[in-house]
């Protein structure tokens, strides 16, 4: 097959793919130019398999998520171990081979690994350029892979070098920038007062700057360095960001992501060439490897084909909602209003559990108009709800936000959304958890998880307290709708809990409505009321029979209370 941009295709006997010209000199390619030449179809199969296995590792272990935390080296270590376990028909998989420090640059094993790296990348491009969903998956994983490889070459190497006393080598990044025409030029700061001041400011991130530290900075228009600007990682002056070599990695990755995206869109227009040849092969492997694993996950986050109506929400919130959604709900009930972020997160969540658009409008409207004029609601808020359901604006049927997005959101003053495990103060979180029946020991457990910033795990522990006998995945909760679905399942599978509450409720029934009581099934409630009435009636008849006036008054009072 032709990887290049020339539209003409060479005539082929079946069974062969053309890969002629090879320049596999790069351990860390930017994949700007596709290779050309011939390869075996069997090799295609093996290569696709190998790369998909590698990309799959990054589905779970995302580097970009851990940000700047100290555990970066550990995290890289975990990925390294996972990658080593990946088997390949070619012996060691190409990443492991390429990072093997013992092999010289011209080693044949290395050469072969480079070749596999390049070809498999371009093979997958073909498959993943359409539709959007697949494209996003591929671009994200490939970017993560590149990030890992760059970090491995700098941070990873620095760690091993520190042990052996070698100097840190950041030239990989410099080379990458140079070789791929990335147009970022390093500036070298001299000894003038101005330069020294600039160096001091630009290296604010580094606590101990020595005067002989001469590692270069890159001077980049801030528009081209958005990631480091956003995170306040670089010093900005007069419209330029001064980016350290280390932070250049995230810039390179952003650039890579953009270029890959454009390349895929361009490729999409010509992919029909391969419709009956390569694509079916790749599709088969993809379905076996990735899709099946993901389907399991999707089932867990379960689109329950269930209808939820506004009157059910209070009960569901207390019993089945994850803390993030329950707190938004309580906030909404208390203030009769939630701000934009809350409406977005909560609205989409409710959509996910089966609240219809009409009901969603009704639900929010009934609450909001307690504080503002109905016309104002219709004018200002209805649109947003309809937008969530894909009826306005972009008309996209949005999916509920996952934990990643919620954890990374930045609620401002007065906002009710966010991940309680991250965005609540410990005292408020504790109050919330205690109210939900979390005991001291577990509280401590959760507190330390929160300190480690392991919010998903903390939420998972909370889930286990709510449903002790229900198993969830080890990583904890990763989607609020998964929490909800699992919670529903847990109750269906293990109705004992309900019995307990029921017993309890019967004793307290004449009291005021406690929140827990609302967890009762509506029908059961009716039945209970009926039974209670019968009992009272029975008492009343007995009382009348005894002509005990005192008791008569008492019971009738009681019954009034009930009705």
């Amino acid at each position, binding site marked *: 097959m032709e990887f290049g941009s020339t539209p003409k295709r060479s005539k082929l006997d079946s069974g062969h793919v053309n890969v002629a010209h090879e320049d596999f000199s790069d351990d860390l390619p930017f994949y700007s130019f596709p290779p050309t030449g011939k390869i075996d179809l069997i090799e295609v199969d093996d290569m696709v398999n190998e790369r998909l296995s590698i990309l799959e590792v990054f589905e779970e272990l995302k580097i970009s998520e851990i940000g700047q935390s100290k555990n970066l080296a550990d995290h890289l270590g975990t990925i390294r171990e996972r990658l080593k376990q990946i088997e390949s028909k070619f012996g060691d998989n190409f990443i492991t081979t390429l990072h093997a420090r013992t092999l010289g640059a011209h080693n044949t094993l290395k050469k072969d690994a480079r070749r596999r790296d390049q070809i498999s990348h371009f093979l997958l491009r073909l498959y993943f350029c359409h539709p959007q969903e697949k494209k996003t998956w591929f671009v994200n994983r490939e970017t993560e892979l590149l990030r890992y490889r760059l970090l491995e070459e700098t941070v990873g190497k620095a760690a091993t070098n520190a042990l052996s006393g070698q100097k840190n080598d950041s030239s990989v990044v410099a080379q990458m920038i140079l070789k791929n025409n990335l147009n970022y030029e390093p500036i070298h700061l001299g000894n003038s007062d101005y330069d020294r001041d600039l160096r001091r400011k630009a290296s*604010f991130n580094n606590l101990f700057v020595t005067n002989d530290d001469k590692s270069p900075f890159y001077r980049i228009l801030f528009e081209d360095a958005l990631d480091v600007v956003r995170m306040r990682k670089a010093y900005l002056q007069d419209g330029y960001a001064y980016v350290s070599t280390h932070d250049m990695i995230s810039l390179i990755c952003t650039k890579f992501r953009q270029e890959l995206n454009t390349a895929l869109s361009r490729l999409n227009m010509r992919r029909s060439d391969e419709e009956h040849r390569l694509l079916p092969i790749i599709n088969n492997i993809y379905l076996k490897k990735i899709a099946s694993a993901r389907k399991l996950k999707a089932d867990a986050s379960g689109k329950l084909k269930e209808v939820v109506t506004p009157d059910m929400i209070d009960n569901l919130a207390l019993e089945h909602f994850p803390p993030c959604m329950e707190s938004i709900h309580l906030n909404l009930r208390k203030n009769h209003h939630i701000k934009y972020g809350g409406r977005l997160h909560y609205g989409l969540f409710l959509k996910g559990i089966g609240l219809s658009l009409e009901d969603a409008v009704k639900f929010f409207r009934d609450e909001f108009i307690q504080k503002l004029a109905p016309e104002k609601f219709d004018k200002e808020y209805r649109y947003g709800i309809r937008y969530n359901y894909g009826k306005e604006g972009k008309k996209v049927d949005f999916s509920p936000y996952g934990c990643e997005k919620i954890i990374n959101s*930045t609620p401002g003053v007065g906002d009710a959304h966010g991940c309680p495990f991250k965005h609540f103060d410990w005292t408020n979180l504790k109050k919330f958890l205690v109210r939900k029946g979390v005991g001291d020991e577990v509280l401590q457990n959760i507190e330390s998880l929160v300190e480690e910033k392991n919010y998903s795990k903390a939420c998972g522990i909370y889930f286990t307290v709510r449903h002790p006998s229900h198993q969830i995945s080890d990583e904890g909760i990763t989607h609020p709708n998964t929490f909800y679905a699992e919670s529903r399942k847990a109750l269906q599978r293990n109705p004992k809990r309900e019995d307990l509450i029921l017993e309890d409720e019967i004793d307290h029934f004449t009291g005021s409505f406690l929140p827990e009581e609302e967890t009762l099934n509506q029908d059961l409630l009716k039945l209970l009321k009926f039974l209670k009435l019968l009992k009272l009636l029975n008492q009343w008849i007995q009382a009348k029979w005894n002509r005990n006036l005192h008791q008569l008054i008492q019971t009738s009072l009681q019954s009034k209370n009930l009705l």
Partner: protein
Amino acid sequence: MGNDALDMLPLYYKILFPSKLFVRWLSYSESDETYFKRRELSFTLAGDIYLRYQSFPDDTELVKALLSKLPVKIDIGAVFNKEPRDNRKTMDVLIPLERELIFDIDMDDYDDIRTCCKGPEICKNCWRFIVIAAKILNAALIEDFGFKNILWVYSGRRGIHGWICDKRARRLTTEARSAIVDYLSLIEGGEFKSKRVTLPANKNLHPSITRALDIIEKEFEDFMVKDQKIFDTVESASKIVDLCTDPELKTSLRNKVLKTPHRTGLERWKCLEKAVELHVKERNYTRTHARYFLDEIKLQLCYPRLDVNVSRGINHLLKAPFCVHPKTHRVCVPVDIANIKKFDPFTVPTIDQLLSQIDAHDALQPEEKDNKESYAKTDLAQSIGLFRKFVVLCEKEAIMQRSSEQRSTESLTW
């Protein structure tokens, strides 16, 4: 808007509203003559009727529309790919292409910390929050991002709007705006978080945060401690002490700062300052979470609180300068950022005052009645002067840019 003010609007739009200058501003001397025509203006009419996607070829048409529709509020939107008012005439979709980078600081967001007023009320005292916020933002936008043409406009009641008009700013993508907003946002955490600023103790502060602290430093004692009285009662002081995340320091602060009821707020603050400094020093600075505790307090109380959604979108509407605020009747005048300390929102002229100033002037100097611009007879003169200076500044940028582009193409053809 009350009926009286509504009655005055026709006259205001006719003789006071600087429509020529307004159109000149939004045209930015762009070589593309359709630039202003493609700009969305949106009107709010009495009775909360919104008219979106208005656009005008020039100032005459604009004034005509203002006089016939009498909007109580004018909003400025984006520059689109075609004239927004023609939206339905052609099939192609309306796409927002450019707009100024905008910031909205509103007293609303300070309600949990200001002690002087609540709700829509403001006083000279709490206005200082806005002043500090605008100063910090202005410095960052100029020094860090290299922007030059920034217009600050009083929002008419209790806030301020920033318009960053450089060509580079107008062309920013949504992602870039988002990144800028994140760079400038320090206060985070919603309803359930009382500690809203956390600085990483194992790092030096970002230079832009250091600069913000320098600005806050100058005012903190006088403003927060003396005027806002945040340490005057044990109750309010304990709210601050409770922000401390280091349990050991927190206990010691409770003992030192809170257990002595008969102290002035300033004494309490000084005591807290000393105690924290000592604690941090003893632990060699980096070995404690409390390293930046004092800075965190200052930032939490005084760092700008942005309405981030306004700045992020390219298509967000923001009230135009020289609107008349429907409730206060005050004109949304530009603010001279260099002298923002002297700006007093309570002396901003109302529409009522302006019109009577014209009458008074005409009575006093009848010879000038017909040969002097109306605004020049009023307190609006200074504001319009400021606005004109700004418009000229923007136009200069465009001309300079064009001539430098020309030079570079000329040298290429050589």
